[in-house]
């Protein structure tokens, strides 16, 4: 395995590279070339959002030097978690070509449920959280029944849900209007005070980079054994090293002040789990298939209704979990929980992160990247003591840009044959 940079040339040409029309490139250079070609063909992936994030951070840092300080970034990561988890659910709806407009209301309802069960009824906090998330799942199941049985468009179902569950939230909170969560409860501590110990954060970083290297090598070896083209050792090594340095630096920088919050780790963990489910399981394939061509998916024997049901339920469950975390972060549930811009931010984050509104394209990482953009704008403008009017306008402009880019890239892809 010493000269793995030229995998195909040594013996016979790998099975998947035999066609003479293929442009052949191998090794590290080949990987870079392939990436450049993809982007030129309109398969932008995460590039626009990463570039956008760099620009936004640059501008905000120039306007206010506190923005990129460790303390502010720690705060940013904590603010990301709840909206990010809601956006993660929205990604699933967009992938199957549907939309959920009620994520804000469902998250607000869930905030109210957790506060009432935990504070008013005195139930254990775990029970309250589970009940709130289950309530979210039930809402999703009800949506999917309406959608599958009666064929009501998801847009309308969830618009009704938006109103209905906002009403239910106000009704449950009743005369009090606001319930405070005790500061010494585990839930509030989790969202505000609990951070990963520095040593553990570095261990996690090394585990992540090492995991990438090991799985990459195993996969490469398996492909080689099967006579297919495979990535070389340097290629994989460089990839893992880049990840190690990047994550290591982020963690090091955050550790300068409070560090990495457990709530953010939970968010990233959920993104990784969902990424695995989407990219490496049969269910994930069927989600993309339903988003790409429902009829083809049905004829391939996929239980399309079940796929829709699972996505509706995941979306509302994540919205409910996001609501629990929002309540924990605020240490209160009130009438404006889940209201205001939560709904719009969550949907915008999924789209800005690169999930196509046309269905069938996008990854779980869209939620992470998109919510970083949204919260960066929010945090930066707050630091400049600009009120929410500016925040709405800037976020709106960025969303417009993201959707325009998606549509333009779609056209480029069509002309260069990349779907």
């Amino acid at each position: 395995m010493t000269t793995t940079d030229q995998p195909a040339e040594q013996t016979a040409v790998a099975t998947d590279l035999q066609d003479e029309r293929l442009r052949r490139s191998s090794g590290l250079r080949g990987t870079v070339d392939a990436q450049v070609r993809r982007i030129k063909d309109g398969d932008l992936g995460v590039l626009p959002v990463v570039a956008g994030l760099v620009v936004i951070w640059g501008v905000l840092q120039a306007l206010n030097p506190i923005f990129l300080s460790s303390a502010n970034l720690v705060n940013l990561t904590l603010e990301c978690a709840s909206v990010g988890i809601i956006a993660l659910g929205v990604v699933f709806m967009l992938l199957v070509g549907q939309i959920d407009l009620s994520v804000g209301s469902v998250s607000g309802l869930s905030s109210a449920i957790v506060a009432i069960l935990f504070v008013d009824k005195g139930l254990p906090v775990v029970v309250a959280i589970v009940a709130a998330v289950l309530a979210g799942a039930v809402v999703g199941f009800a949506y999917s029944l309406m959608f599958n049985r009666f064929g009501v468009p998801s847009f309308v179902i969830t618009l009704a849900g938006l109103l209905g569950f906002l009403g239910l939230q106000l009704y449950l909170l009743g005369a009090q209007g606001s319930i405070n969560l005790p500061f010494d409860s585990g839930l509030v501590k989790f969202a505000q005070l609990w951070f990963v110990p520095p040593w553990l954060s570095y261990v996690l970083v090394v585990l992540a980079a090492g995991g990438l290297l090991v799985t990459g090598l195993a996969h490469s070896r398996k492909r080689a054994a099967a006579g297919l083209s495979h990535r070389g050792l340097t290629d994989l090594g460089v990839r893992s090293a880049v990840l190690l340095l990047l994550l290591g630096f982020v963690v090091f920088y955050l550790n300068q002040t409070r560090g990495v919050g457990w709530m953010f780790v939970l968010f990233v963990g959920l993104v990784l789990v969902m990424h695995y489910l989407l990219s490496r399981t049969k269910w994930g394939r069927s989600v993309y298939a339903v988003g790409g061509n429902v009829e083809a998916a049905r004829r391939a024997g996929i239980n399309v209704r079940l796929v829709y049901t699972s996505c509706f339920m995941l979306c509302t469950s994540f919205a409910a979990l996001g609501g629990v975390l929002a309540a924990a972060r605020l240490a209160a549930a009130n009438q404006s929980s889940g209201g205001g811009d939560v709904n719009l931010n969550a949907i915008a984050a999924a789209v800005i992160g690169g999930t196509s509104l046309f269905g069938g394209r996008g990854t779980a990482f869209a939620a992470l990247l998109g919510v970083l953009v949204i919260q960066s704008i929010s945090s930066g403008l707050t630091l400049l003591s600009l009120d929410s009017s500016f925040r709405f306008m800037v976020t709106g402009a960025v969303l417009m840009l993201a959707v325009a880019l998606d549509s333009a890239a779609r056209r480029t892809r069509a002309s260069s044959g990349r779907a």
Partner: protein
Amino acid sequence: MTPTAPASAPADTSVLSLRSISKTFGAVAALTDVDLDVAPGQVVAVVGDNGAGKSTLVKVLAGVHAPTSGTITFEQRTVTIDDPATAHDLGIATVFQDLALCENLNVIENLFLGREINALRLDDVAMEVRSWELLRQLSAKIPTVRIPVASLSGGQRQTVAIARSLIGDPRVIILDEPTAALGVAQTAEVLNLVERLRERGLGVIMISHNMEDVRAVADKVAVLRLGRNNGVFDVQDVSSEEIIAAITGATDNAVSQRASRRQGATTTHEGAPS
């Protein structure tokens, strides 16, 4: 196999037999008492005019529509095909006219859609190897299996669709208008493919409009007209004209012959310029 079988029982040799299949959509009878038999290693062409019920028949066999009445016998067992998955589990694979491919997925993902190897941890290496095997068997000219189907040509997509139907070793393959959208060379390749399927001992049902294609590969021709059987012919014993007559309903009897003669005479008398 039972000797007490009724008169219209399927022949022992057939892998798939339809008896008195009817399908109504509201007041419209799309299929009425249709019979069809396919033996292993036999290519049966189903022909008919627009609205003859060909596509409905395909959808009944593929499990997209349930028949209103009638029996389907598959390998001597009476079966009901409720959904596409059942059809596939039985061993009836269908290539639809619109191919039913997901354009956002790549060739491997499309080939194995709904039948992925290892549901909880997809074995993409095994799937890619199998994809190449299949495509090579069919002499497919697809440069790479890792590009989305959207970027393939019509013939390449047809090949992918046929290759997909072969996954899971079906006994019967239904091809709905496989050559309708193809060029000359691609049509020839698809016809070669059909012959390769026959050599492998599969029963093939081919829906087609194209008489040349039908005569080139089919063993039997079953004609549908207005949702009913209108004759089954052996390809060797029948001329294209006879098939066309059966399709259009101008059956070759004395009355119609006389009628056409008289009509021909009338037009000549009127001296219509040709």
